[in-house]
């Protein structure tokens, strides 16, 4: 994936060219959704967060330097939007749990298999959940996780450490079964 935004593309987007903006941000939409779903655990809210983040990115284009990595810049806006959503959404646990009822096959089986881990993730502090999703679901290197979250590398490491420690009983159980 191209990490640095094309200078001409940015200039065109800054001048109001929507197609140029789509060329820049469009390839990142799927990854942005995955980050949002990892944070919010709700499809509709995740899509809303990505759309709102894109609008904010459009308005903040002047902050993007031509040589700056594009992905951390955009995902940081998505993460920030998710934090805003989390702060204002007291009902999320109830709503997500409603979809995690036992199923019999196919898609429902997958939902059931991941339910325990999703429940464990939701119990984490938002900042720990965020770094775990970025690191282990989006498969991003730690440097980029630090850039997206806006904290030093050491803080990222310790947040991952704390998050994994809290979820260790779950992973140890999985390891014992596999």
């Amino acid at each position, binding site marked *: 994936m191209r990490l640095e935004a094309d200078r001409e593309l940015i200039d065109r987007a800054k001048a109001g060219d929507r197609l140029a903006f*789509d060329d820049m941000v469009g390839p990142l939409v799927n990854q942005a959704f995955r980050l949002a779903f*990892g944070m919010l655990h709700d499809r509709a809210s995740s899509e809303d967060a*990505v759309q709102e983040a894109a609008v904010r990115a459009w308005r903040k284009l002047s902050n993007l330097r031509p040589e700056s990595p594009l992905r951390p810049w955009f995902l940081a806006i998505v993460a920030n939007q998710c934090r805003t959503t989390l702060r204002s959404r007291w009902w999320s646990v109830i709503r997500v749990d409603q979809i995690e009822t036992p199923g019999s096959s196919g898609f429902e089986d997958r939902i059931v298999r991941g339910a325990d*881990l999703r429940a464990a993730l939701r119990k984490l502090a938002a900042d720990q959940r965020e770094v775990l999703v970025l690191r*282990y679901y989006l498969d991003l290197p730690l*440097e980029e996780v630090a850039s997206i979250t806006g904290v030093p590398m050491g803080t990222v490491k310790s947040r991952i450490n704390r998050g*994994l*420690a809290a979820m260790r009983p779950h992973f140890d159980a999985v390891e014992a079964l596999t």
Partner: protein
Amino acid sequence: MDELIRRKMHEALEVEQPAADLRSRVLSTLPANEPRMRRVWTLSGQWAIGFVAVLLAVAVIGGLLYSRGVLPISPASPPLPKSGLPAHGRIAFTMQFGPPGCGSSGHLCDYGNIFSIEPNGTGLRRLTNVATGLDQDPAWSPTGDRIVFDVAFPMGSGGYEGTSSNLFSMDANGGSMRQLTSEPTGVFDGDPVISPDGNRIAFERFDLSGRLTGIWLMNGDGSNIVRVTMPPASAAGGDQRPDFSPDGTQLTFDRDGSDNGDGVIYIVGIDGQGLRQVTPTSFNFVRPRWSPDGSKLVFSNPQGAGTAASRNIYVIETDGSGLLALTHMSYPGFAGGPAWSPDGTMIVYDVYAGTDSIQLAVMHADGSNPIVIWHHAPSTNFFAASTAWGTAP
């Protein structure tokens, strides 16, 4: 374990995929107006010209004052002439390049290399040369002929591949590079230091799963690795940044308790016995460096993530008495990463005045006579840190 976590996370979260039309919906929801930056140009011509003129005047006057040494690096730290600086030994440090502000608060730098410079600010040499990786945390051998350091991700790989870090050694001029450790994904070896007899290397190991985290010792060739400390579960940041006592029998290090990298300074025997706390738990301190006479530790407090707290350099007696601030920088400026000169009379450190990139400075061991020994051209964005002052000629 790392792979298991990744697999289970994918399994748990891939239950939902974005709608096929999400990308087109994103584009359709953009507001009709142009991006906000265009509003800058709605200023009337007269106001715009006046504004630019004022900016130019401030920049020119500021540049003149700075180039003549009139502007201090902090209100309490005016620069002094370089003529009073020692010319012996060399200072090794990491220089990272990238966008403004990179290297702090999670902003990415593009790459980093190790350089050395004489304490009077002359004779800058590049010792490593990578374009995507990060070579950092250099430490000298007692004789000044070798340097150990860590590489945040393997040299030669593309950027954004930092999943582990390993220890390397090289000659004082950057030659004869040798890899000492080779860690799997999720394990980070860093901040190596060489024992006073030159035979052992102490370093930090941080394991994302927590199992290997602690201070470790090994022979100079990377063999015979043994654990020295095992941080308690409450120390999520692990034990970090060790340094040997001058007689080589003890290590000092910081034990980080929380997400913000706050640390408490400890001393422990190299056999892992006799652990004792040196600094109060109520303060946050990191990267202790033992004075050559064995009586003191110098260190700094970390810059809190997302906070307006500044960072300064402190010194304390090894028995925990006499805590004293040597610098008094105000946010957003800071001073950190201190290291003693070989004779213990001076301290080198990195300093940020709040308006420029991070620079190298030295001061007397009591905090007096601070002076910037090297700074960059204004158009270059770099971040200098992790200093070490060796005996190399």
